[in-house]
């Protein structure tokens, strides 16, 4: 089952980052193993002057995946907008993963700057993937600003803590049933990614959990399986939790010595 991100039909629900791998060769193998169709690329940090990052970017282009350039490291609206323009030129895509960082240590998004930058970029023809929190009001404002996708965090970038606020993420899903929602950041384990998909999220974006694993290629595969598993779980409509175990077979008529175990 495909999903539409702006004008593009996408099959894989796994978006993977391109930073922090032991080598570009391992990065390419991990992307392949992830079966991701979309890779994120950080421009600001790796760019330097316009041409100096070309060699690394050519590896990413070689992966055959669609590039989602990001504005990682930008801390103001102006920086983020400038970086997005640079990305559009280099990768010839209207897509941009918009990050406006509000706090250096946790890399928490500055949601005020985010909404402002999203408005400017959407008006300028960009297709913005905003990295945000699970806050409903911010989400609403991003949509008003023209975003057709939301990317709430699971936990702070690189923390590997999983889904910090499951209730908040669930509310966001319930409030925006028709907006593609991608959990971005904070994922550490495949089970975290599966949990996000089980909540009905449309996709998961991660980087550190794969790139910094002992075997990034194997971990990429593990995440691909988990994300697919979570998606199928959601589609299969799982049972609800109950306060007491529900017997799956009727107890009446069982021999008395089995009653205790029913």
């Amino acid at each position, binding site marked *: 089952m495909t999903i539409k991100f702006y004008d593009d039909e996408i099959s894989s629900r796994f978006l993977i980052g391109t930073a922090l791998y*032991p*080598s*570009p*060769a391992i990065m*390419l193998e991990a992307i392949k193993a992830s079966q991701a169709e979309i890779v994120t690329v950080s421009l600001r940090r790796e760019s*330097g002057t316009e041409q*100096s*990052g070309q*060699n690394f970017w050519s590896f990413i282009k070689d992966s055959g995946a669609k590039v989602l350039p990001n504005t990682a490291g930008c801390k103001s609206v102006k920086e983020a907008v400038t970086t997005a323009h640079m990305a559009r030129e280099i990768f010839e895509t209207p897509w941009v993963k918009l990050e406006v960082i509000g706090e250096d240590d946790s890399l928490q998004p500055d949601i005020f700057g985010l909404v402002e930058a999203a408005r400017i970029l959407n008006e300028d023809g960009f297709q913005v993937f905003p990295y945000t929190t699970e806050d409903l009001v911010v989400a609403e404002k991003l949509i008003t600003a023209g975003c057709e996708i939301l990317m709430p965090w699971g936990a702070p970038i690189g923390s590997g803590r999983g889904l910090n606020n499951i209730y908040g993420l669930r509310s966001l899903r319930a409030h925006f049933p028709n907006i593609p929602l991608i959990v971005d950041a904070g994922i550490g384990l495949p089970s975290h990614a599966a949990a996000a998909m089980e909540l009905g999220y449309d996709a998961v974006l991660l980087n550190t959990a794969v790139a910094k694993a002992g075997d990034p290629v194997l971990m990429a595969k593990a995440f691909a399986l988990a994300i697919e598993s979570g998606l199928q779980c959601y589609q299969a409509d799982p049972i609800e939790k109950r306060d007491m175990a529900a017997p799956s077979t009727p107890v009446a008529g069982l021999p008395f010595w089995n009653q205790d175990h029913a």
Partner: protein
Amino acid sequence: MPSIEIIGSGITGLSCAAFFAERNCDVTVISSSNGPDESCCSWWAGGMLAPWCEMESAEPLIGELGLETMKFWEKFTSSYQKKGTLVVATPRDLPDLKRFGRRTENWRQVKEDQITALEPDLAGRFTTGLYYPEEAHFDPRQVLPELVSYLESKGVKFQTNISLSNQELNVPSKADHRIDCRGLAAQDHLNELRGVKGEMLLIKSNEVKLSRPVRLLHPRIPLYIVPRDNGLFMVGATMIENENRSGATVRSVLELLSAAYALHPALGEAEIIEIGVDARPAFPDNLPRILHKGKTTYLNGMYRHGYLAAPAMAKRLVEQVLGENTAPDHFEQFCEPDLSTGNM
């Protein structure tokens, strides 16, 4: 014995010269600069010989080459100091220390009092760390001139300030073999080669003394600090996927300095002596390669492992060029076949 023309006077070129000279070859080193100086990456290196720590993210080959190379350096240079490496993390980053330990070998865990015994100036600053007793360090800026004098004593000739154009390099050498060790400058011939930017600082402190390289782990800004003579410390190094060598960014310098400050606040009073920047030559797998093309053999892609890998790679290159290929089997996969008929 055959005549050998080596192009490039960084650690790779000089290592090749050393092994060819040992076989009594007639060796000439051609350098585009004054010899080993700030124009080559080797000048800016930390000089850590840390094959075990590097295993945190490098391929096993680097560890194997590193072990072999350390024996070479131990014999070769008096500035070789086997004092180990200390790896520490702030309380919040202890998960990284755990991971680092899991990925590496040949360490022992040290608690606060043992850290103090190793590095008295770090007393009370870290509760736990990893100590790699077999690792060593030296000052590349002492080793490079030492290598040059050694080579001169062996009859190796140096031709400095000769920048060969691509055209000149396409004409076969008059020597029996040309060894191209130009690092990133060989990009025109080796199209898979890329530069990985690195920024480093040289600071001077009279307050803080360290006996060995100390690594401070951080999820985004890993730092190492290598003590040198006269109160100098090399603080490094960023790893950025671009080839821009025009200058260090404010952000990189800020990050390196804050990490140094986190290691010891007294380093806040240190003087900044130098801010260095260069780009490391690397192939896509970040492993070194020997490539043969007609009479030219390339040794390149040392990445961040020049001092750790160059002598061991040079030894293999010399064996291959002189037709006595005794390289162990595992090495073969990293040597490309003769490319004289193919495209590079």
